[in-house]
């Protein structure tokens, strides 16, 4: 897989994941994510990995949790309806701290919607879809080559933080075929979960580190003599259920802190023309491609526009906005293929500093560069 290649976004996802060490995939077909499952069924056995098509998305999510506990890097892929179904078991992975990657290739919702048309309607669901308090990490690629690198990144984060990470694609990026230059395997940074250094008797799978409340306890694989307990009930450090408000509360806080305390490290963003900008376009995913074109166009027309392309959409990247908040921005434009979702935290962070202008389209239509350019011109 070296050298320049024409790859589909969904293919790049599989190749990136395998490069990151993916060895178990469980899924259930759904447009526009199906190619990921199909390619996994072909490619995984070639590298000694395993593929299974489960009876539904709930089972797929359960299976990857099980496989991850047994020590394999695991992934599932789906789209809106399936992503809704996975929510309960995503919550289980969060609560029990099972590393895994969940791909959602977004299509138009709600409900069955338009299976083959692009949308970005699941952005808030990714953050809040499962019940109870939790944080989420979600990465949002804009190009095929970025799908590849973010698939690797998703695994690295999942394994290091013992969390499910969502690779949030959209139909545009998933189905696009694009030229990509895959990095040399030796140049890739691939991280594995920490295994316990302690002996089985001493091992606490949910240990709270007194010096570092955001520390991630190591995870022993099943079958290596640790004989520990994993439960979705609120549990103590040893993994067994607790009814103590303090103990349970501390664990909930810890699993949130794992993410929130690392928000800065996790934040990935592409910035363009930021130095002297007045008007900012804040975009992500497929829409960011239109935004980039629009911003370039605006610059060509002498307008001081900038692009903030958000990559790590969760945890929400407050820093970059706080930075521009201090520079008397004229406006922040947020184009989204939805009714206005990520614009909400943008507004929250921007406060009363400047107008935050949502630019929305639903029904499966692209947001065109010209739409964004018009908004930039208007905001000027």
């Amino acid at each position, binding site marked *: 897989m070296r*050298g*320049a*290649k*024409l790859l589909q976004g969904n293919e790049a996802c599989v190749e990136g994941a395998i490069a990151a060490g993916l060895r178990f995939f469980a899924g259930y077909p759904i*447009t*526009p994510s199906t190619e990921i499952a199909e390619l996994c069924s072909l490619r995984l056995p070639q590298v000694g990995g395993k593929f299974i098509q489960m009876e539904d998305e709930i089972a797929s999510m359960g299976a990857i949790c099980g496989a991850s506990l047994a020590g394999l890097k695991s992934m599932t892929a789906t789209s809106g309806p399936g992503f809704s179904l996975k929510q309960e078991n995503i919550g289980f992975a969060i609560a029990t701290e099972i590393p895994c990657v969940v791909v959602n290739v977004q299509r138009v919702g709600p409900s069955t919607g*338009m*299976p*083959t*048309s692009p949308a970005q309607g699941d952005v808030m669901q990714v953050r809040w879809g499962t019940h109870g308090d939790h944080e989420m990490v979600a990465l949002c690629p804009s190009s095929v080559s970025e799908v590849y690198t973010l698939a690797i990144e998703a695994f690295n984060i999942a394994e290091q933080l013992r969390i499910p990470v969502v690779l949030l694609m959209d139909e*545009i990026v998933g*189905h*696009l*075929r*694009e*030229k990509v230059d895959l990095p040399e395997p030796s140049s890739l940074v691939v991280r594995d979960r920490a295994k316990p250094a302690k002996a089985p008797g001493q091992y606490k799978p949910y240990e709270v580190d007194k010096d570092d409340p955001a520390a991630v306890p190591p995870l022993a694989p099943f079958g290596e003599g640790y004989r520990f307990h994993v439960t979705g009930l609120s549990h103590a450090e040893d993994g067994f259920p607790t009814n103590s408000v303090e103990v349970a509360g501390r664990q909930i806080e810890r699993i949130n802190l794992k993410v929130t305390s690392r928000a800065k490290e996790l934040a990935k963003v592409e910035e363009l023309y930021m130095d002297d900008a007045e008007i900012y376009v804040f975009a992500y995913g*497929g829409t960011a*491609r*239109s935004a*980039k*074109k629009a911003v*370039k166009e605006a610059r060509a027309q002498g307008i001081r526009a900038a692009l903030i392309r958000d990559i790590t959409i969760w945890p929400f990247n407050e820093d970059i906005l706080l930075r521009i908040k201090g520079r008397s921005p004229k406006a922040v434009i947020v184009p989204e293929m939805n009714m206005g979702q990520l614009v909400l935290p943008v507004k929250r962070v921007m406060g009363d500093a400047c107008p935050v202008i949502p630019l929305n389209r639903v029904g499966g239509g*692209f947001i*065109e*560069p010209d739409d964004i350019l018009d908004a930039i011109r208007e905001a000027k």
Partner: protein
Amino acid sequence: MRKEYRLAGEGGQGLITAAIILAAAAAEHTDLNAIQTQSYGPESRGGASRADVILSDEDIDYPEVKTPDVLLVMAQEACDKYGPSLAAGGTLIVDTTYVETLPAVEATVVKYPVSQRAKELGREIVANIVALGLLVGVTGAVPPEAALAAVLARVPKGTEELNKKAFQAGLDAAKEVA
């Protein structure tokens, strides 16, 4: 320079494959950037379907084809549906085996009985590769060698010779109709 190509016809004519080969030829054998997209879903089952390619020596930000510079049509319905999208001054390549009525467009029109030619070569199934040769020949989208290499890398084993012939037939036709 960004150049947009649209290959339109019916499901089963292999135009998606042709578009992928065109894009792969550029991506894997030239310095051009390449993007390929297509219509999916109910829209693509039966009726007119399309596959698009964008080639450019710059970054390709916006990935959709709105007004193709080159439009290949291999079915009447597809011609009727996508004909109007052709950019003014563009090139319309017509498989006259299946397309009779042409839209009123301001374009260079290239006509050739692509599918008929494929049948003569032995199997109509290679009409897409004949069309690709024709398109490459007419537009110079990519060097013919690049396209041929991409063809051979992507067709089923055992069909290389036939596809090679088909591609050459398309190239030859380009000279013929030019």
